[in-house]
């Protein structure tokens, strides 16, 4: 356990060195959000609520889901794992005194943490400027949402690592990462589940989208304890399921590994 804490510490310190490069991304994020606000303001012209959401709630929903997405954009879970497998470097990694997957997850989490905190701050500022504070938010609900958002970031990373592990079999896992990001964008970020037809909405409730996108954002918008427990339990179950799948895929991949010396 100590070694993984050390990985978190060193990666976190490393990420802090590059925090200035995030500022330029904030501008892009702010502009993307203002374009989406323009779109939703126009859609809400003739309506006060759509599928139970006011314009303010809708914009905060977008901000919160985008925060998880932008905040968890760490190359550790995507390019680093993919390149490690493709280059054969994984042969060295699996001989080290740690489990490669746990190492990747802890490194991803540490790398993404500073990014996530920075995007949370910028999202809050944007939300307050554009539409004002979330209605009925309290300190308790805000603090309760923190573990849910952190678990959402963790699950996002685990899914990305799982996709990267396909590099054991395919030339490039990048197209699969792209498909995943589009699915999240359309079904998890742009619209809350209630805005889809009932059948699609019901299906989405049983997918990771519920844990990584809809659930955390909805909890922040309308907090209640039973919903908090519901999301938390769903996230823990999702983590267990993905861990099992990662373990199976990783074991099979390593068994298939054939590295030429040099």
């Amino acid at each position, binding site marked *: 356990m100590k070694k993984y804490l050390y990985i978190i510490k060193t990666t976190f310190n490393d990420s802090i060195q590059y925090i200035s490069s995030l500022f330029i991304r904030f501008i*892009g994020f702010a502009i*993307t959000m203002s374009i989406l606000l323009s*779109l939703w303001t*126009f859609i809400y012209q003739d309506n006060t609520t759509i599928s139970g959401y006011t314009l303010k709630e809708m914009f905060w929903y977008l901000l919160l889901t985008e925060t998880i997405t932008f905040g968890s954009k760490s190359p550790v879970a995507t390019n680093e794992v993919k390149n490690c497998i493709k280059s054969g470097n994984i042969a060295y990694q699996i001989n080290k005194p740690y489990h490669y997957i746990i190492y990747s997850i802890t490194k991803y989490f540490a790398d993404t943490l500073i990014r996530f905190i920075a995007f949370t701050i910028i999202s809050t500022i944007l939300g307050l400027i554009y539409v004002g504070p979330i209605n009925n938010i309290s300190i308790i609900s805000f603090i309760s949402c923190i573990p849910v958002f952190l678990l959402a970031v963790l699950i996002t990373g685990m899914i990305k690592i799982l996709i990267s592990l396909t590099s054991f079999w395919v030339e*490039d896992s990048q*197209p699969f990462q792209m498909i995943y990001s589009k699915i999240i964008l359309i079904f998890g970020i*742009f619209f809350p589940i209630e805005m889809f037809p009932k059948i699609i909405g019901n299906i989405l409730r049983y997918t990771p989208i519920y844990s990584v996108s809809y659930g955390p954002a909805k909890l922040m918008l309308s907090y209640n304890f039973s919903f908090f427990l519901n999301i938390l339990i769903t996230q823990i179950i999702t983590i267990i399921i993905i861990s099992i799948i990662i373990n199976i895929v990783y074991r099979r991949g390593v068994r298939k590994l054939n590295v030429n010396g040099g």
Partner: protein
Amino acid sequence: MLTEVKNNLKIMFLSLKYNLIRVMENRVSFLTSVSMMIFNNASFIIQWLTIFTLVEYIGSYTLNDIMLFWAISSGSYGLANILFNGANKIPEYIENGKLDAYLVMPKNVLCHVITSSTEPSAWGDLIYGYIALIIFNFSIKNIFLYSLLIIIGALIYTSFVIICNSFTFYFIRFSETSEILKDIFINGSIYPDVIFNRAIKIIFFTLIPCALASWVPVHLIIEFNIYHFILLILATNILIIIAFFLFYQGLKRYTSSNLMEARS
């Protein structure tokens, strides 16, 4: 002068031909990139289908009209990156001193640079543009007009990219800002004009001219207006001239890295 133009065009076509041969060498990778890009763009149909279940119109636009914005933007962007992807690499060339290889050749430097590379996935954008047009707004007239307008759109986009990237001659690490400006251009062109306020519209017609590459062509396809078409061509020419001017002004500040390397 005419011979010089002819020679430069010949060089550009040869460059494009060899770029294409190069990307076709790995067909599986090429086809994967293309199909992924088509999937990427097509996913946004779901976004708009969902929006149109919530509201009947966006301004006066129907789903078919909105898909025209996508078709035009995707087609223009695709064509620009197939033909002139080198424009995206200007910052890399400047920062790493790679322009040397182009400066020693007796050809137009900018034309040579912008045609030096192609983006395989851009074929997906171009193909998607035509698919979207055929599904949502098919007519022979539209296909002809669309083909013409995406060429204009590609020239506007490329000129904008050259203008942005030419600032790398003056400012260190301007490439990141340039990427953001390109993102704004693309984001502005895929959304309909009616959702933006007047201030943003002015910006999108002038500083970040995505309105010229997308909104105006969409309106021309919906209802052709010769006056607007001529103005669009004039604006495109002005942008091209500005792009050439800024690039060559910046080039005077370029210092060689004495880097010895062969061009791939």
